[in-house]
């Protein structure tokens, strides 16, 4: 599959605008040390970085779970610091890393309805929103089953559905593919891509660089509470030293391209197809 980078160009317009954001936890840990970042409407942005780089803190500030002492956060034209978490939930949805931290209902359908119900929508509207979310995450067949007895990949889909049921303009996914096998990952990410194509802004927090290579439009590398790099995907992968500084490793295909750079292979390759194409071209040139 050719990476989606070229296919879908994000529409202009700032969905999230963050300026000089700092955050220090109670124990004195400085999680964010001045972050500036714009997230555009309709893009799929990956935030990558080692453990403790500030990714999750950043995400929790975007949906109001943490209150920044300094800096400004504007979400969809509104100042996030003056909104409650529940108000922000209509704009920024956050699916936690561990789906089991969100699931408690006796059926999948009830679980997905929980969010819109909290936001005070009338029951008919709640049913419609939940129905759409379950369709988007392909949960129709299991809508009557108890979520907690289902497999991990299903639980993760339910937890994402329960967030998109509130119809947020921005969807933050925290490590959505941890613990999933290759097929489950592909299925899940296809559903997510579909949401993105329908116009939803997606923020993907992950360590998985292959996921980034395959699905993201733009990469933000965080390290030690700062944005180290903000670029398109292939640009991010061409700077090995910088990635390693952030405890990250590009996908194997990019490493291979780096190794072959003396032979005229560019360093910014992110998909096996692209590498194969380059190698074929190289052979053509030699002959």
């Amino acid at each position, binding site marked *: 599959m050719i990476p989606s980078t070229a296919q879908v160009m994000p529409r202009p317009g700032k969905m999230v605008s963050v300026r000089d954001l700092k955050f220090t936890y109670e124990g004195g840990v400085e999680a964010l040390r001045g972050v500036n970042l714009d997230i555009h409407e309709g893009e799929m942005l990956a935030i990558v970085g080692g453990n403790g780089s500030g990714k999750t803190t950043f995400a929790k500030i975007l949906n109001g779970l943490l209150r920044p002492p300094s800096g400004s956060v504007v979400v969809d034209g509104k100042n996030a610091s003056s909104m409650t978490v529940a108000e922000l939930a209509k704009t920024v949805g956050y699916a936690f890393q561990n789906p089991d931290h969100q699931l408690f209902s006796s059926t999948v359908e009830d679980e997905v309805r929980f969010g819109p119900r909290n936001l005070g929508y009338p029951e008919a509207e709640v049913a419609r929103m939940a129905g759409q979310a379950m369709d988007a995450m392909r949960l129709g067949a299991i809508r009557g089953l108890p979520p907690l007895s289902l*497999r*991990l990949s299903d639980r993760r889909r339910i937890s994402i559905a329960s967030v998109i049921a509130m119809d947020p303009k921005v969807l933050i996914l925290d490590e959505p593919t941890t613990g999933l096998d290759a097929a489950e990952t592909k299925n899940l990410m296809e559903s997510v891509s579909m949401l993105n194509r329908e116009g939803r802004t997606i923020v993907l927090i992950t360590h998985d660089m292959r996921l980034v290579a395959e699905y993201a439009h733009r990469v933000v590398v965080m390290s030690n509470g700062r944005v180290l790099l903000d670029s398109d995907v292939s640009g991010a992968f061409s700077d090995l030293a910088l990635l390693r500084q952030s405890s990250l490793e590009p996908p194997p295909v990019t490493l291979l391209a780096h190794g072959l750079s003396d032979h005229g292979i560019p360093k910014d390759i992110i998909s096996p197809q692209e590498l194969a194409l380059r190698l074929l071209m190289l052979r053509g040139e030699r002959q």
Partner: protein
Amino acid sequence: MSSGGEGEGGGSPAAPRNPAKFVSPKTVALYGILTALTTAVTMVLVVPFPPTRGFFNLGDAMVFFSALTFGMRAGAICGGIGSAIADVLLGFGYFAPITLVAKGSEGLVAGAIGRIKAGAPAAKLLGVAAGSLCMVSTYFFSEWVLYGIGPAIAEVPVNVAQVLIGGSIGILLSVPVSNLLRTAGRPHQER
């Protein structure tokens, strides 16, 4: 997780040979975890309550939950010890023995009555009410001796409100978790 979780040897046919006559590893793990959970919930989940500007903790919800779901033994041990540890860590160490009796009897009685007729709603209500009575009266008489009648009386409405909240949540909790234990056998394991 044994759905009964009750008694020596855990009652599970799959339990390993146990020559030392200790309770089964399942029971040790379950009781340890339920105790920790009771302590953590008591310490972390405090409910602001506007009428009195006071705070209630949800520890009683865990005591009732343990008792109604896993039986009177779990209710007494985990509820009593878990709440007593919370007392120690919150700075009421001297109160821990009293709490051990108050919450232990609360769990014991709620578990003994609340699981009659496979935990029929009426049994649960009665069990929670009787357990609550044990807790409120134990604290009342202990505080009477320790603090005098004034503070003891002042504490009664606080404790009553606490068991009302804890009891209703405990019953609400026991239903979905019991269902989960019954239908799924156990929560799905990560593969």
